């Protein structure tokens, strides 16, 4: 943003109190990891929303692509026997 162009982008993940998993909150620009963490706290945790924060360089993230969606996730979709509804139990019994 000054002489050297855009500062690196960092993705911010915050963990809410109560043992919930980390969740993507947004992103910040910062010169280094330390200031990214401080910026993330100021931007995404002003009201005790977080007990932990991760910042990750955006370029370090490998993500699936929208074109992948069908074939990439298919192995999960064609295995109904992974769900409890696939199995039957005698009438009137709660399993």
């Amino acid at each position: 943003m000054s002489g050297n162009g855009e500062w690196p982008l960092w993705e911010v993940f915050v963990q809410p109190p109560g043992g919930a998993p980390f969740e993507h909150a947004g992103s910040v620009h910062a010169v280094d990891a330390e200031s990214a963490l401080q910026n993330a706290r100021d931007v995404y945790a002003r009201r005790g929303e977080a007990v932990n924060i991760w910042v990750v360089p955006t370029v370090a993230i490998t993500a699936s692509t929208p074109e992948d969606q069908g074939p990439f996730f298919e192995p999960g979709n064609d295995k109904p026997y992974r769900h409890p509804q696939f199995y039957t139990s005698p009438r009137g019994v709660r399993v």
Partner: protein
Amino acid sequence: MQETEFDARIAAGETIEPKDWMPERYRKQLIRMMSQHAHSEIVGMLPEGNWITRAPTLRRKMGLLAKVQDEAGHGLYIYCGTETLGIDRSELIDQLLSGKAKYSSIFNYPTLTWADIGAIGWFVDGAAIVNQTMLAKASYGPYARAMIRICKEENFHKRQGYEIMATLAAGTPEQHRMAQDAVDRWWWPSLMMFGPSDKDSPNSAELTKWGVKRKGNDELRQRFVNLSVGQAKAIELTLPDPALKYNETTGDWDFGPIDWDEFHRVVRGDGPCNRERLEARNAAHRDGEWVRQAAEAYAAKHAN
């Protein structure tokens, strides 16, 4: 082909994510709308920041300081959402500083008295909540998620403003007059915040077709009026509109005509504070240059 698929996804209420295919026009319109929204949050700090040092009590000062800090945060949420559409943050900032970008014209009005801080929280943030609650269901995921985050925080803004107004209105006759004067000046510009009537709004139809906007400008404006009437009455302040009248048939409060000439004048740059706001924003950016340089020098030193 892709466009048909895209339209079908919109029709099915699916959320569009950054890497999904989207029509160029959808991308352009979102960049325009989201960046204007982000700029508005940033410029919105200026009329209120003006009063931080003059807040009447420590309690008020803490509240206002926290609100202004939130506005900075809200600007950053939306900038980061806008960047997912493939535009750089620096380009967005340049557009604001050069005067090329637009922002909500409400922030080109001056804050003359402390009561204006109350009126801004009550009306301007109140109107923003009505609008942003609708945008929290926008078809573009990053925008909708930023709106959800903002809506959670913005209620505090409205309540601190309304409390300021209620306190002044229940105070001395002079304080009551001050509150009424702020209501008189801020009411109509707040109604203009929803934008021109749908039939005169060039972007509305397209944004509605794509599920970015889920309700029309007029419907949102009406909702804001309906909410405000009772709130004004409760603290014995009068909304400056002699035509305001309850409509038994529709269940809405009918209101008088809006001065759209004034709206267009302010949007074009001839509002009371357009130049001052842009100068203040540029000065703040210039004055922060040494901080950015120091941060870069520090990072460079520690990189080795």
